[in-house]
Each structure stands twice: as structure tokens, then as C-alpha cells.
């Protein structure tokens, strides 16, 4: 089934759906411009705008449900953005509204959580301003009805991410990580930008509707190129290979940021882009789509491997995020059969990963911002609520039967298996590794004996932090079943992304499903043996080559340094040298040459009148001679 046509509509709440973006944007503006005057109520305003946005989102969603499924793609024109190039407008369809609900919903929870988490930070107001800015940009990204608007949001979330990762600017590591995130993202944006240029050149339009309705039929090569370029953009934003390196460093930001941006929302933008453009540029079986699946499966495994070796709780979770987004990309790459699973997994992942990140934040909050899991241990008794919610998230992510992750991940594996057995088994392998590293994380943190620092006095977090955890864990439990069973989500999403002619049916005991469960169980058991039962050393052992390989992020940073940074520094120095000595040297050399020559020529002016007279006389003789010659010609 093909995606439905886009219809213009501007009635009801949908007509003011720009409020979705405007509200948090307004919040950010007030908080940033208001300065210290808004310190007192800044966090409340931040939460209020996010929640208001969520309410608007729900209203829009309700109104959308009122439409006939085939008409659930509504364009809301706003204004003429760049005359001659594109108008600005919003696209309300099942895909975007799913994202809107996820972003505003999980976003609001994280806003609330941050009230507690950032309570002691003098710059809390600024933090909320940035969070609001992020929500606004992310909403623009998913709501824009054209690629330029998407790009605006795309870079906007990059900016917000930059600001939030580097929120503790006084820490050089944070500042560097922020810069790295922005620059690596820019590499992806480079691809996205050129992709948009190509789209405009090929279709003479950058709006989704325009591209879909276009009469132009660009060559297959052009379409593949567009697909690959968009994929490059998606890789940057979603931390997929080869642009994954920024995500782990991005954990320098405050934990709610990691939860909101680097787990639940921003990093999923790549999946959104691929899904949104799927019908046009990633048709099933095309080169671009195959590239998406390869990137997805590679990242899935790489992220999982990285996750196994990290002692930093947030970095381990970040590795897991990479891996899970790899699953989504993989699913998105296989076409309409996978879109629904990809987005469903994205939503459930948004819940359980936010849950776990916030749980990790809660743990850190309790442990004086300690992130090294080797210094945790036995926390389940001290922090029961955190433990319980975290456990739910953990079970969801490893695909414990009947929890959210079980349905969505299993759906992905099943559909991929139908598409390509190799990719499917790799995905199964990834699930097994997930079982291992997530179990390792949980065991090291909550089980075993206490390995705390002397001054650590862990305690349960305040209600403002635990309630979001509870709500998120509830979502982590039930959402998967709600979305997947009966193909509810696939049907809902079909007008936006299409769906296979034959709806898949849920097989709880398929070969792949059973194999996955077995592998996950094996991984968890292995983790129990190594980290649950056995003593966990406080200082990390040296480990084998493989461990080092994983700890060093598969040498991704080393590769980047060797391939880009060092040659870049060298090139920069060369260019500066060339500019100062080469071009400017040429100019100054010319000036010095003229000066030197005239300095030497000056010597001809001896001051002897007779010399001058001689030159006059010779000149006169030459003139007379020349006159003869010319006269006789």
C-alpha cells in the first residue's frame, strides 16, 4: 500500500499546530532574554511550555484520528519562507504525530525530572531554556512539510545538543565533547544538505508533497545518490557508523540531556528521515536501502560490543543506544515491512532508554556524580524505586517476553529475517550481546557488594525525579504490546509510510524468536557468572585485546584522529604557512623588490650635475638619432 496523498488543511487544532513549536520556543526565548530575572520560575516555565506542547499534541492527535485513515496526511501552510525556493508549513500525519507525542511526552517527563536533578545548579534556568529550544527544534524537524524546514530543525537540534552537552562549559571535556558532537553532526548535515540540493534540482521542489507529486523522473543514479546522501545525514544525527564517535563523548552533558537527546529523541531523527523519505528514496531493495540495512546492522553490533566493555554507566547506555538505533535503521532499510517496527521500537526505546538513563542519573545523583559502575554495587536496597524502574527498562531492552522491547525488537528481527537471513541472524546475535551487557550493567550497579567511595551516601531520589521514572517504566511495560499486537501501529502508520500488502502476524514461537530468547538468556547468565556472582574488581583489569578494542570505541576515535584530525591540523598549519609566506610573502616580496630596486636605482642620482647633463645629452643624441631613423623609414 502506497502512502496517502497530502491534503492541505487548516481547521481546528491542526490549524494552530504551529503552537506545538511556538510554545517551547517562546519558553526558550523568555528564559534566555529574561536573564536572571526569570531564575526563580524558569524551570516551571520550561516544564509548562513542554507540557502545554504535549497537550496541543494530544489534541492534534485526537483531531487527526477523526479523519478517515486515507486522509490522515494534512499539510498546514504557514508562510512563505524563502520566496522562489520553499514555503514553510507543517505536515501532520501519523508518522509526525507519533514523534510529536513521543517528543513532547517523554520530553515533558524529562523536564519534570530535571527540576530535581538540576536543583542545585546555578544555571538551571539556562538549562531549561536549552531544553525548550531543543524540543522546539525537534518538533520542527518532525513537523516540517519540506526538507528545508526539516534541515532547519535538524541543525536546530544539533545546536541544542551542542549547548546541552557543553552545559558545564567550565569542564574542558564537556566543551570539547559539545564541539565534537556539532562538528561530526555537521559532516552528516553536509550530506543532508547536498541531498536536499539534489532533490531540488531533480524535482524543483523541496516539499514532501511536491516531491511526491512531481512529474519529473530523475535517473536511478540520482535517486540512489539522494538516498545515500540522506543516509549520510541520518548517520550523523543518529550516531551510526561511521559518524558514531560523538555520541559516547556526548555523555559529558547532564544526564537528563543524555536521556532526552541522546536516547529518546534527537538520535532517532535519522530513523525519521529514512522513514519519511522511504517511499521516495529508499524503495525496497534499492542500493540506498541496502546501504541503510548494512549501516544499521554494523552499528547494531558495534554499539553492542562497545557497550560490553564500558565501565562508565552512561557510556554503556550510550553504546546500547547506538545499538538499538542500529536495529531501527536496519528495520527502516527493509522497506514498508519494517517501518512500523522501526518506529514502534523507536517509541518503546524512547521510553525504556529514557527510563534507564534517568535511572542512571538518579544513581549518579545519589553517588556524588560517580559514573564508574565498578564503584557501585548493591544499590538495589538503597534505591528501591530507581532499582525497580531500572529493572523494568532493563527487561524491556533485552526483550524479556511480554515487555515492550520484546514485541518491537522481535518484530524487527522477524521482518528482517524474512528479508535477508544473514542480516537477521546478525540481529539475533546483537540481541544476545545486548542481553549480556545490559545484565552486566544491572548486576554491577544494583547487585553484588558495595564498592562505594568512602564519602558516598546513596539515598533514594526525590519524588519529582522518581515519578517520571515510574511513568516511563509503565510505558516500557505495556507500550510494545499495545502497538504491535494486532498490527495496530502498522495500520495507523500506513497512510504516512505505506505498509506491506500482507500484514505480518505475530508468531511468539518462531525459530528466530526462540533463538533470540535463548541467546539473551545465555548472555544474561554469562553476565551473572562474571559480574553477579563473582567479585567485581574496583580497578578495571587490563583485559584482552578484544576488551581494549571495545573500550576504545572500536578505535573509532583513533581512526578519526589518524585520518582526519592530524592531517587536518597538518593541512591547517600548511595553509597558514602558505598564506603568510606564500601569498603574503609574494605580495610583500614584490613590495620589498620594488623597494630594493628603487633603492639601487636611487644610486644613479649621484648629485653630480655633469652626470645628469651627460644623460640629457645622450638622450638628446638618441632622440635625434631616432628621429632620423623614424624619419627615414
Amino acid at each position, binding site marked *: 500500500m502506497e502512502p496517502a496523498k497530502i491534503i492541505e488543511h487548516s481547521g481546528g487544532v491542526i490549524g494552530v499546530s504551529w503552537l506545538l513549536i511556538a510554545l517551547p520556543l517562546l519558553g526558550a526565548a523568555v528564559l534566555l532574554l529574561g536573564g536572571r530575572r526569570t531564575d526563580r520560575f524558569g524551570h516551571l516555565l520550561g516544564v509548562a511550555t513542554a507540557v502545554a506542547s504535549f497537550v496541543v499534541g494530544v489534541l492534534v492527535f485526537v483531531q487527526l484520528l477523526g479523519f478517515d485513515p486515507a486522509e490522515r496526511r494534512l499539510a498546514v501552510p504557514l508562510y512563505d519562507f524563502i520566496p522562489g525556493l520553499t514555503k514553510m508549513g507543517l505536515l501532520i500525519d501519523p508518522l509526525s504525530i507519533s514523534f510529536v507525542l513521543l517528543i513532547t511526552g517523554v520530553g515533558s517527563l524529562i523536564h519534570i525530572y530535571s527540576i530535581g536533578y538540576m536543583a542545585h545548579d546555578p544555571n538551571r534556568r539556562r538549562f531549561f531554556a536549552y531544553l525548550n529550544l531543543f524540543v522546539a527544534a525537534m518538533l520542527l524537524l518532525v513537523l516540517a512539510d519540506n526538507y528545508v524546514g526539516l534541515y532547519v530543525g535538524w541543525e536546530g537540534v544539533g545546536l541544542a545538543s551542542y549547548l546541552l552537552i557543553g552545559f558545564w562549559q567550565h569542564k574542558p571535556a564537556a566543551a570539547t565533547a559539545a564541539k565534537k558532537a556539532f562538528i561530526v553532526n555537521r559532516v552528516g548535515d553536509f550530506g543532508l544538505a547536498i541531498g536536499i540540493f539534489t532533490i531540488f*534540482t531533480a524535482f524543483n521542489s523541496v516539499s514532501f508533497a511536491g516531491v511526491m507529486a512531481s512529474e519529473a523522473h530523475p535517473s536511478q543514479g540520482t535517486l540512489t545518490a539522494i538516498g545515500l546522501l540522506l543516509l549520510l545525514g541520518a548517520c550523523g544525527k543518529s550516531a551510526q557508523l561511521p559518524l558514531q564517535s560523538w555520541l559516547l563523548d556526548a555523555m559529558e552533558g547532564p544526564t537528563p540531556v543524555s536521556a532526552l537527546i541522546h536516547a529518546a529523541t534527537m538520535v532517532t531523527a535519522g530513523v525519521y528521515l529514512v522513514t519519511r523519505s522511504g517511499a521516495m528514496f529508499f524503495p525496497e531493495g534499492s542500493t540506498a536501502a541496502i546501504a541503510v540495512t548494512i549501516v544499521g546492522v554494523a552499528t547494531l553490533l558495534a554499539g553492542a560490543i562497545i557497550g560490553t566493555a564500558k565501565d562508565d554507566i552512561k557510556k554503556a547506555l550510550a553504546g546500547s543506544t547506538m545499538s538499538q538505533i542500529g536495529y531501527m535503521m536496519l528495520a527502516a532499510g527493509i522497506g514498508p515491512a519494517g517501518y512500523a517496527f522501526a518506529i514502534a521500537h523507536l517509541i518503546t526505546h524512547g521510553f525504556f532508554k529514557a527510563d534507564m538513563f534517568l535511572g542512571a542519573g538518579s544513581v549518579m545523583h545519589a553517588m556524588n556524580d560517580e559514573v564508574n559502575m565498578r564503584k557501585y554495587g548493591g544499590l538495589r536496597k538503597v534505591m528501591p524505586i530507581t532499582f525497580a524502574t531500572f529493572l523494568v527498562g532493563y527487561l524491556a531492552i533485552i526483550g524479556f517476553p511480554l515487555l515492550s522491547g520484546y514485541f518491537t525488537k522481535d518484530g524487527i528481527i522477524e521482518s528482517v529475517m524474512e528479508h535477508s537471513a544473514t542480516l537477521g541472524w546478525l540481529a539475533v546475535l546483537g540481541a544476545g550481546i545486548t542481553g549480556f551487557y545490559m545484565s552486566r550493567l544491572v548486576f554491577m550497579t544494583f547487585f553484588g557488594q558495595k564498592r562505594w567511595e568512602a564519602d558516598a551516601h546513596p539515598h533514594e531520589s526525590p519524588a519529582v525525579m522518581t515519578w517520571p521514572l515510574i511513568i516511563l517504566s509503565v510505558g516500557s511495560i505495556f507500550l510494545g504490546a499495545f502497538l504491535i499486537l494486532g498490527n495496530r501501529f502498522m495500520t495507523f502508520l500506513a497512510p504516512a509510510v505505506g505498509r506491506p500488502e500482507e500484514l505480518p502476524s505475530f508468531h511468539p514461537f518462531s525459530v528466530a524468536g526462540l533463538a533470540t530468547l535463548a541467546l539473551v538468556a545465555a548472555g544474561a547468565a554469562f553476565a551473572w557468572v562474571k559480574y553477579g556472582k563473582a567479585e567485581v574488581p574496583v580497578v578495571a583489569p587490563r583485559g584482552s585485546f578484544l576488551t581494549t578494542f571495545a573500550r576504545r570505541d572500536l578505535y573509532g576515535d583513533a581512526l578519526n584522529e589518524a585520518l582526519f584530525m592530524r592531517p587536518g591540523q597538518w593541512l591547517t598549519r600548511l595553509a597558514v604557512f602558505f598564506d603568510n609566506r606564500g*601569498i603574503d610573502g609574494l605580495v610583500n616580496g614584490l613590495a620589498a623588490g620594488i623597494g630594493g630596486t628603487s633603492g639601487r636605482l636611487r644610486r644613479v642620482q649621484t648629485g653630480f650635475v655633469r652626470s645628469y647633463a651627460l644623460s640629457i645629452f645622450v638622450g638628446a643624441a638618441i632622440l635625434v638619432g631616432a628621429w632620423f631613423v623614424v624619419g627615414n623609414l
Partner: protein
Amino acid sequence: MHYWLSTLIGVPVLGALGVAAVKNELRAKQATLAVSLLVLVLTVVMAVQFSPNGDKFQFTEKYSWVPSFGIHFGLGVDGIALVLILLSAVLVPIVVLASWHEAEAGKRSVRMYFALLLVLEAMMIGVFAATDVFLFYVFFEAMLIPMYFMIGSYGGAQRSYAAVKFLLYSLFGGLLMLVAVIALYSIADKGSFMFTDLVGSVQDVGTQKWLFLGFFIAFAIKAPLWPFHTWLPDAAAQAPAGAAVLLVGVLDKVGTYGMLRFCLELFPDAAHYFTPLVLVLSVVGIVYGAIVAIGQTDMKRLIAYTSISHFGFITMGVFAISVNAGSGATLYMVNHGFSTGALFLIAGFLIHRRGSQYISDYGGVQKVAPILAGTFLVAGLSGLALPGLSSFVSEFMVLIGSYETHAVYAIIATSGVVLAAIYILWMYQRTMNGPTAESVRDIKDLNGREKWVVAPLIAVIIALGFFPKPLLDVINPAVTDSISQVQHVKQESVAQEGQ
């Protein structure tokens, strides 16, 4: 008959005389501010009356100046010139306010600085409003004089080197242009220097090429296009921040404006012929300027190199010969004036506080001066063309327009986007982030006057970032008109190749 444009030129000139005559320094400053604000108001009132789809040149005035050569004091604006005049009129009051205490360390009097500023404003408006090629040349050269003194008398330690370098470079280009202007006059044989009379008067392609080069080199030096750029970092780094803003923000735009107005319209065949060359230079400039900017240790030089990179975008847009790219380039001229202006001014405030231009002397300023750091970041982000800020629209238009006609160049140029992120953010990190350096621990945040300087710039940057339509509506018809001839030539040559 309107008198708008001659008024706009006359008011600052008279103001300059008045300011130079006032004895009291404070009064002189206030008078300068008042005059520049008056010019701004007049400009805005004039701009409102401009009808985008009316005649090509509006508010035209024409007085005979040297009748024996057909030289006129001819004024008039089209959309391109109008927005650039607006840019000048907006920037000058801001610069006046920003330079309030800047001239006090100079070699000449403070009054003289402000008088020069007003003279410069008159020249800038004149150069954009001139519809007589000779008059354009006169303004083009006359602009150098106040700027020369502003750099040479009020600049940093190396000011005389920088001022002389600036002057010599510009004069060299100007003389080439003069030769071309005179040659154009005599070859066209219309007995007039009026632009409208000269358009289309040179048909021979070979001749066009030579005349084109004469104009183009002058504009390339002015712009500055790689490899004629090395005067800019010196001049911008040595000039007082206010002068640097006008230098990079407006004066250099005369170069790109000239390319669009004169090189394309007067010599369409030659422009078509030289397009690959110019595009190569632009692309090299974009990448090269960005790479060299990354390696700078001096804040103002760094900003100057970023401008070289940006000018590469503008020239690429001009010569990509597509409406989107041309309009984008014109809009870029305006946006670049604001964003780089803001960068220079805020960097100037910072440098004024610490007394050093070297990036390594700073660190952690964000903690002690958050507003300064924040505004600096916004200006910087505009410099790296972040969507939502004004430069993005123009850069995107330039790139998308260039991609339509010259995809490979556009792709290479787009890599400048990545490099821009590196140079801006790395500078920001080194100056504003990290632990607060001992030497900047006591610096103050922006004061009231400085906030008034920065606020309008930031407001304009953000407003144009989301809503560039008012400017684009004015620019688009003018650019379409400007490049139509070259497009025509291009189509013809394509058609010939087809046969």
C-alpha cells in the same frame, strides 16, 4: 524628480563637516549618532516607497557633471543597491555607538574619527547609488580615503603597514578599473558614462573579456577573492573594531556588488566565458579561507579569514548564474554584514576589556560575562550559517542555486559548512569555555551601551533568519534582471553546442 538619494549622501557629508567643527567631544559623538540615525530613518522611509516590480532603477536623479565627456552625477537604486544601502544605514549608527570610546587612543582627534565615519557613510551610499559608471569609480576610490585614515590613525600596533597595504591593494585594483572604465567609454562610443547607456554597447567578445578583467580584478581585490585576499586580515585586525565592521561589512560588498552589477550586466559574454575561473577561485577561497581561519591565533584575523570564506560563497552565488544563487548572494551580502559585524563588534568589546587579540589569552569568559559570550555565540553561529539565523538562508540559496548549474563546485563549497563549524566553535571553546583564565577573571559583562549595540544586530539576524521574504521580494526581480543577459548568453552557447 526625487531628491532621496542626494539627500542621503548630502546629510552625512554635512554632518561630517558639523561634527568636525564641534569642539566638545561628547557633543560630536552625539551629533554623529543623530546624523546617522537620521540617515537610517530617511533610508527606511525611502525603502518603503520602493516598488519591487517597478522600474529597474528608482529614485533616479541625473545632473550633468562633466558635459564634455558625458559624465553625470547619476543616482538611482534597484533592489540590490537598495538592500545594501539599507545595510550601510543600519550598520553606521551601530558602529557609532560601538566606537564610543574607541577613538580615544588614536593619533588624531576623536571628532575626526566620527567625522570620517560619516564621510564614509556618504561614500558607501554613493557607491551603491551611482548609476554613472564614472561616478561609481569616483565613489569607489573616495571610499578608501576615510577608511585609510581610520585604520592608519586609530588602529593597532601595525596600523600603518595595514593601512598602506589596504590602500595600495585597493588603488591597484581601482586603477585597473579606471582603465577599463575609460576603455569602455571610448569603445562604446555613446558619449555617456551612464550605466544604462553602456549596457549592451560592447558586442565583441574579445573586447568584453579584457574590459571584464579590468573590472573584475578591481572587484576581486575589493571583495576580496582568493588569492587577492591578504590585505583583509591585516586591515581588519589592525583597524578599530567599528572600522573593521564597515570595512568587512560594507566596503568589501562593493566588490561583490560590482561583480553583479557591472561584470555581469555590461559583459555577459565575458562573464559566461570566465565563469569557471571565478567559480574555481571562489571555491578555493571558501575552503582555503576556512582552513586558514582554523589556524589563526588572533581573533580578529580569524574573523577576517572567515569573511574570505564567506566572500567565496557570495562570488560563487553571483557567478553561478541562477536566480536562487544570485538572490542568495545578494542576501548574503546583507546578512554577512550583520553577522560578521556582530562578531567583530563583540570581539572588539572583549578585546577592549582584556587588551589582547590573541585567543590564547582568553578562556572561560562565559562564566564571568555570560551575555557577552552568548551574543558572541549567536553571532558566531550566524557565521557558520546555522538555520534560523540569517546567513543560513543566503548560504543555502547560494548553494542550492549553484548546485543547479555547477554541482561539483557546490559540493566542494558545501564542505565549507563543516569547516565553518570547526573554526567558529573552536574559537568559542578556546575563548569562552573551559576554566576561567586568571587574566579575564575580573572583566565585566556587556554594559548598557554595548547591549544596545548588539541587540539590534542579533534581532535582525534572527528575524532575517526566519523571515527573509521582505528583502528577497526586493532582491529577486533585480537579480533576475541582472543575470538574465548572461543566462541568455549561456542558453545560446548551449544551443550552439547542441547543433
